[in-house]
């Protein structure tokens, strides 16, 4: 971003460079827009299909599967929006995602603080222990994980989804947060110690605020992961009253497989929270993902 912003300024310094560059932009421009347009319509097309499909009737869909709503009907959406299945799933998803986020952030910051700022035997081992978690994606662990959750009596309970989600989000969280916490200058800690503040007080008054960017990134990653999660709830949650949104959509789609229009309405309404969340935090999500990948 910033690199491209400086481009015109440096271009002015050397006139021939500028001329060459502007010619390239003129050459590339229409093609660029065309490609961008194609790419966007491919990306958005299926999403629009879902949204528009919800405004049609089943007979419209059967007559012309790829048409636009004519006339527009909102009964599918109102039916779904007044159904208890939708709101139960929405509530469960919200609880699961918020509790997972809170748990990941709290446990993650505390553990990262220890790894980043305490000196003790086994510190490296602790970091390696958490980092080893990256080797075991949820898919690999899901069968025994189900047995573990069942052993604890948490099947069909949101807690049985929340705790594993926290556990599986901890490795990335700790890997992202440790460098943040390490970067807080020792001077600040020493000043706090001289002022008579305990390490724990230092933790709450200095560490949390100073590592906020990292905390927000990891929190958002955990939230999105929990909100969209399908496999874990599929194994753990068995009754409709505990379903999260992805399970609710899958269940609704198989239950009302004849009523395509309503399935599309249900699907597009359950897309709304994720889209709102994403448009609010777009930059942070993108930065978080690229940051998490680049290390």
């Amino acid at each position, binding site marked *: 971003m910033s690199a491209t912003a400086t481009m015109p300024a440096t271009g002015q310094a*050397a006139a021939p460079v500028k001329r060459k560059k502007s010619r390239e932009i003129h050459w590339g421009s229409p093609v660029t827009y065309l490609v961008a347009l194609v790419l966007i319509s491919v990306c958005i097309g*299926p999403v629009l299909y879902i949204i528009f499909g919800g405004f049609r009737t089943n007979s419209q869909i059967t007559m012309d599967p790829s048409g636009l709503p004519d006339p527009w009907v909102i009964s599918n959406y109102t039916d779904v929006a007044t159904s208890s299945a939708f709101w139960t799933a929405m509530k469960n998803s919200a609880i699961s995602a918020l509790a997972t986020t809170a748990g990941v952030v709290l446990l993650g910051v505390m553990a990262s603080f220890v790894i980043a700022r305490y000196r003790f035997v086994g510190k490296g081992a602790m970091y390696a222990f958490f980092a080893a978690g*990256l080797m075991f994606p949820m898919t690999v662990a899901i069968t025994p994980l189900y047995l573990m959750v069942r052993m604890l009596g948490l099947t069909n309970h949101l807690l049985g989804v929340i*705790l594993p989600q926290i556990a599986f989000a901890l490795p990335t969280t700790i890997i992202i947060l440790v460098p943040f916490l390490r970067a807080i200058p020792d001077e600040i800690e020493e000043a706090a110690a001289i002022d008579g503040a305990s390490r724990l007080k230092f933790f709450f008054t200095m560490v949390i605020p100073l590592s906020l960017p990292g905390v927000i990134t990891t929190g958002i990653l955990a939230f999105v992961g929990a909100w969209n999660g399908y496999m874990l709830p599929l194994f753990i949650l068995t009754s409709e009253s505990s379903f999260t949104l992805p399970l609710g959509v899958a269940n609704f789609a198989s239950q009302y497989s004849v009523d395509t229009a309503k399935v*599309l309405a249900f699907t597009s309404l359950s897309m709304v929270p994720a889209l709102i969340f994403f448009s609010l935090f777009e930059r942070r999500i993108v930065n978080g993902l690229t940051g998490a990948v*680049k290390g």
Partner: protein
Amino acid sequence: MSGQPQPSSPTIAAGSPVAGAVGATAPAAPRPLKAQRRGGADWRKRAEITILAGPALVVFATFVIVPVIMAAYYGFFRWKGLGVPTDFIGFDNYISILSDRTFREAVGHNFFVVIFSLVFQGPAAILFALLMNQKIRGRSLIRVLIFVPYVISEVIVGTGWRLMTADTGAINGLFGKLGLESLQQSWLADPALAKWTLMIIITWKYIGFAVILMLAGLQSIPEELYEAAAIDGASFWRTQFQITLPLLGPTIRIWAFLSIIGSLQLFDLVNIVWGQYISATAGTSTMATYMYLNGHMAGNYGFGNAVAVVLFLISLTVALIYQRFVLRRDTEGALTGPSKKKAKKQKKEMR
């Protein structure tokens, strides 16, 4: 595993000069302070470590580490998941997994997805990122829209695409309207086509992520290099091949790693679009759907855990081979590696 070799380069880069500066002036001052603290407060430090790190350690061990160990143990039993496993059968589960044709086919499908995810998404993502990286109007809006498929959940994507690609779905309907009846196909059921339908859905869902990664990689390439190339009179494409691609290398290699691991773990989309029973006949079953069907749904937990172990070993082998032969270049890092290592060492000495 993937992030381990390079712990957050931007933050370390930002942090280390500060830490260095502190370290340079500090040694005289803090030492007496630390010594004073240590005598009385050693137990206290230990208590703090326990309180702070304990909860995370317990949760992580209970739900990640112990289950993985359990899987390795239960895999040796014929066990329906009730009570203590007693029917020890050695490697029988593993033998029947590996001699099961449907499992071997599922592995084949996984590697099909691995290869064609790289082939489809890689070049396309680089190309799109190059185009998006130019100064055009509405670039941030384009970025958001490209990313939408990645943000909505697999279940929504799967449900939408299943309805669109059904025999009487929107895709065949569209072909009918355009007078291309010959293109109307049984996209989901025809074993010759279903795999490619899956690839189209996967590409659609995940290319936004690849583009965003590549864009971030492009933006970290210093502008001076392009200016130098322009002064030397290099053409646009020459510049891309000689400067952009080599410098984008680390990003491409990390993206490929994530894509490979993700493809080996593929479950959600297949299970939603095809359901657990049809996927095998349609030729889209994966190791994970096989595990779900034959372990969890069938209630054969000894067998299911053995499948989990095989899945893990295959993923681990692929990951290790990849790290050994591809990622090694980055961890040894001709560009950033040595300097970072030096900075870290310096920092350690300062402490």
